[in-house]
């Protein structure tokens, strides 16, 4: 993110980089990548770092890859700690911890020039002739085994490394020990003791002999009254957001990367007098959730793409029957079983259009871990107000990364979840002149005409009808709820230039890298802005006014460009606005966007200052989108089939 090196000044003994002496003592931004195997517990070591940074009022963002294998396989956890706003996990690492030879080989290219390689000298032999890096070899495996009483196992390496890192970065040891203690609280005391022994051994290692300087994060004095920092991952934020939003019931079926949401809710909801059911399958899960909702308790179901495919018929029922329901899709790479542990944003069409018939539903997408919390509350509010299914899209990267954010004001946010069983004089479940309000069973209807909730096309009382007029009227009723919702959705703020040459449009977890890309492009003199859409269906009104102020609009998303050369959101925006200057940057490598990657794709084959594309946009004839030169932001230019 920072164009200049920002690690402290350092004069380590040989072998050392000549550039190391450029580093300042005090740092404000560091990317630490831990690379090992999944069973080494590097995730928990990384999580400790993230939690500690959050407690020290530092902004923090993490990035994790996990293998799809049941146990084992290369894995990384990357922590970026900054004293300012941290939006993305960092393109390059300042500090790489390599547990194995493959960790070193696979990740050394992510290390910045002048960066530090901390490696397990029991397992790794780096190429010391490569003078770009500072090398710090520590016999991590041997020392851990020794510290823990010489068992044959090397469990605890992660905590040993945590101790080493704590020393190098002068982290608050007492806070870190407290975190370790909390993590193992309630378990056998010997486990916490073992962890602390490993930590102490790492912390006590004389790392100063090979790395003469330790670094220290700039301390930002906390403003008086500033909220405390909460550190959690995206799935936790979703689960607790649902609870704050008054959701007390749900049902699900295990699938990566959604499972932890259901695990949390299964344990947490009973504390609130609610219940989460693990169903026999995805169809059962969505149906149980609909039963909860029908009973007057707005409910949650969720899954990843494959499970959402199975739930689709029942979601169509919710749309038709106008029963509120929340559906979380923690997206992963598809189709079919696809890439279970990788990230992709390829379920947008499924969320908006999945299923047969015209079945309008609301689709929201969280942009950060913090937003997972707030969007869950918003989704619950919308589902109740409009009595309709609401999708919340998240993805693997949000689900697994830990971020620190301001503590939410729970007193203002908590929703009362009690079912409303107020007696009604008369009730039409599907009155054409107003938005449906579901009257759950137990609601006395004084005129004695009880509502029937139906998946067949129905009249205002819910009774089946084949009347063409009623089908038209009811279809419009269900669709118009979304039009009404669109009016209350705020127009997204433009980040960066409010007008100019390039507007980046994003949705979901790409928020951070897109905004960092705008910052960097602005530094390079580009006239660039960005908007991020949290409301994808319906779209907010007024986007056309923003689009009018830019010469080209580039939608950046992690899915395929499809047959016609545009990603899923780009396709929708082009259909909605008939705007040929909308272009598309897509990718399908299953990894989060790097800032550099976005810039290289948006400003393809040119230096940043070049604005060749504006020539076309300025004189754009209608339907220029069929011309290959108008889609040159896309890597492979596909012959265009539509006009």
């Amino acid at each position, binding site marked *: 993110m920072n164009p200049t090196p920002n690690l402290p000044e350092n004069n380590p003994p040989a072998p050392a980089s000549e550039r190391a002496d450029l580093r300042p003592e005090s740092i404000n931004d560091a990317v630490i990548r831990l690379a090992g195997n999944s069973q080494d517990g590097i995730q928990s070591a990384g999580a400790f770092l993230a*939690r500690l940074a959050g407690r020290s009022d530092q902004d923090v963002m993490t990035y994790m890859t996990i293998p799809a294998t049941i146990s084992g396989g290369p894995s990384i956890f990357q922590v970026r700690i900054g004293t300012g706003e941290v939006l993305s996990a960092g393109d390059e690492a300042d500090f790489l911890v390599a547990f194995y030879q493959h960790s070193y080989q696979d990740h050394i290219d992510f290390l910045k020039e002048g960066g530090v390689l901390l490696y397990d000298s029991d397992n790794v032999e780096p190429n010391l002739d490569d003078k770009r890096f500072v090398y710090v070899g520590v016999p991590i495996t041997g020392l851990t085994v020794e510290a823990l009483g010489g068992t044959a196992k090397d469990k605890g390496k992660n905590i040993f490394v945590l101790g080493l890192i704590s020393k190098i970065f002068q982290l608050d040891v007492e806070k870190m020990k407290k975190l370790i203690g909390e993590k193992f609280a309630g378990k056998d005391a010997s486990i916490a003791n073992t962890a602390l022994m490993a930590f102490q051994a790492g912390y006590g290692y004389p790392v100063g002999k090979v790395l003469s300087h330790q670094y220290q994060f700039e301390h930002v004095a906390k403003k008086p009254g500033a909220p405390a920092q909460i550190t959690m991952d995206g799935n936790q934020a979703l689960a607790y957001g649902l609870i704050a939003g008054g959701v007390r019931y749900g049902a699900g079926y295990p699938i990566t990367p959604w499972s932890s949401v259901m695990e949390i809710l299964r344990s947490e909801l009973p*504390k609130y007098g*609610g219940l989460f059911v693990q169903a026999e*399958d995805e169809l059962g899960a969505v*149906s149980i959730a609909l*039963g909860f909702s029908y009973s007057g308790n707005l409910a949650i179901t969720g899954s990843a793409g494959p499970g959402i495919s199975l739930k689709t018929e029942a979601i169509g029922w919710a749309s038709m029957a106008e029963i509120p329901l929340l559906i979380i899709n923690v997206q992963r790479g598809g189709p079919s079983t696809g890439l279970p542990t990788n990230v992709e944003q390829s379920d947008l069409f499924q969320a908006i259009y999945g299923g047969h018939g015209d079945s309008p539903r609301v689709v929201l997408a969280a942009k950060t871990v913090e937003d997972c919390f707030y969007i869950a509350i918003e989704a619950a509010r919308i589902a109740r107000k409009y009595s309709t299914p609401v999708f919340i899209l998240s993805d693997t990267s949000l689900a697994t990364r830990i971020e620190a954010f301001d503590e939410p004001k729970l007193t203002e946010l908590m929703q009362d979840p*009690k079912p409303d069983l107020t007696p009604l004089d008369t009730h039409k479940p599907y009155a054409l002149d107003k938005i449906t309000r579901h009257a759950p*069973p137990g609601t006395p209807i004084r005129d004695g005409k009880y*509502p029937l909730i139906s998946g067949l096309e129905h009249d205002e009382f819910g*009774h089946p009808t084949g009347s063409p007029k009623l089908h038209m009227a009811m279809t419009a009723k269900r669709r118009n709820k979304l039009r009404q919702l669109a009016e209350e959705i705020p127009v997204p703020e433009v980040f960066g230039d409010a007008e100019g040459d390039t507007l980046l449009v994003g949705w979901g977890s790409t928020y951070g890298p897109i905004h960092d890309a705008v910052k960097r492009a602005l530094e390079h003199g580009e006239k660039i802005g960005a908007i991020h859409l949290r409301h994808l269906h319906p779209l907010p009104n007024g986007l056309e006014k923003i689009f009018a102020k830019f010469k080209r609009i580039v939608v950046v998303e992690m899915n395929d460009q499809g047959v016609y050369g545009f990603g899923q959101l780009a396709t929708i925006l082009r259909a909605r606005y008939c705007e040929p200057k909308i272009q598309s940057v897509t990718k399908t490598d299953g990894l989060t966007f790097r800032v550099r990657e976005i810039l290289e794709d948006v400003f393809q084959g040119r230096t940043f200052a070049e604005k060749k594309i504006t020539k076309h946009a300025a004189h754009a004839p209608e339907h220029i989108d069929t011309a290959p030169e108008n889609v040159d932001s896309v890597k492979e230019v596909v012959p265009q089939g539509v006009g």
Partner: protein
Amino acid sequence: MSTDTLTAEPPREKLTKKAITADHPTWCPGCGDFAVLACYYKVLEKRQIEHEKIVTLAGIGCSSRFPYFVNGHGAHFIHGRAVPLASGISLARPDLHVFLFGGDGDGFSIGGNHLDHGARKNINMTYVIMDNFVYGLTKKQTSPTSPIGFKSKTDPQGAIDQPVNAMKKLVASGATFVARTHASQVNHMIQMIERAMDHPGFSVIECLSECVEFFPGAFDNANPRKGGAFEVIEEKKYDNTPEDEARHDVTDELAAYKLAQIPFPGVFGVFYQNDRPTKNALEKKWIDSTREKLGQPTDLALLQKTFDRMK
């Protein structure tokens, strides 16, 4: 969570058949399902259940049109998934009477997995499967209970797949009340429905209900008026008489299987019943003990405590 309404209401009127009758059924004249509907009205009227607490649910099929003909809170869901829908309602709302109606295709074919798990979890509801041995709504295809040799549009040479034995399937999957009745035997059917609704747990009744259009006469040999025999299971009376030895012990699972082995038309009545705790009760126990352990905190205090741990 409290679901009580404390609003003062005028004294309740008596629940009459008229009050709970809605649309005229769309079933073909002579369909067995009419009798099931009539028995349901009778039971509701007899038991005087609070009108707003009756919930009538169904999936898809001829018989699943049922809720439209009942004036009460109800829902017509999707094919095969009515058991989980009913489960959600039952688990969240112990104050309601959850009734579920459906056919053999809905229950034993597309919804077979849900039936197994609803039964295994012993979720409190009353489920009447109106079994006509044929797909009626889609006009005569083979159903999971069609006998071998039954000629349908999908088996023009006669059905070849072994039919589901409803009683065996239900007992095996863990349903805690399993009974069998016949739509032409109104008094028996009413008895079965009443016993099923009084049973706390997953109670299922298979009701042979003739499709006069696509499988006429299917159940005649269990109908005395058509020259058949309606053989009722004699249940143990525990009266220390020698006759009692031979009577059926409804808690004996193996005896239930033996009854289920009797060739068609078999016997009618309660095959199996036990008082295994319901999921409703077990979940409630967990919720109550969890909340007690925590000292009955407010929602806000609970969530705040969680956030404090994440600082």
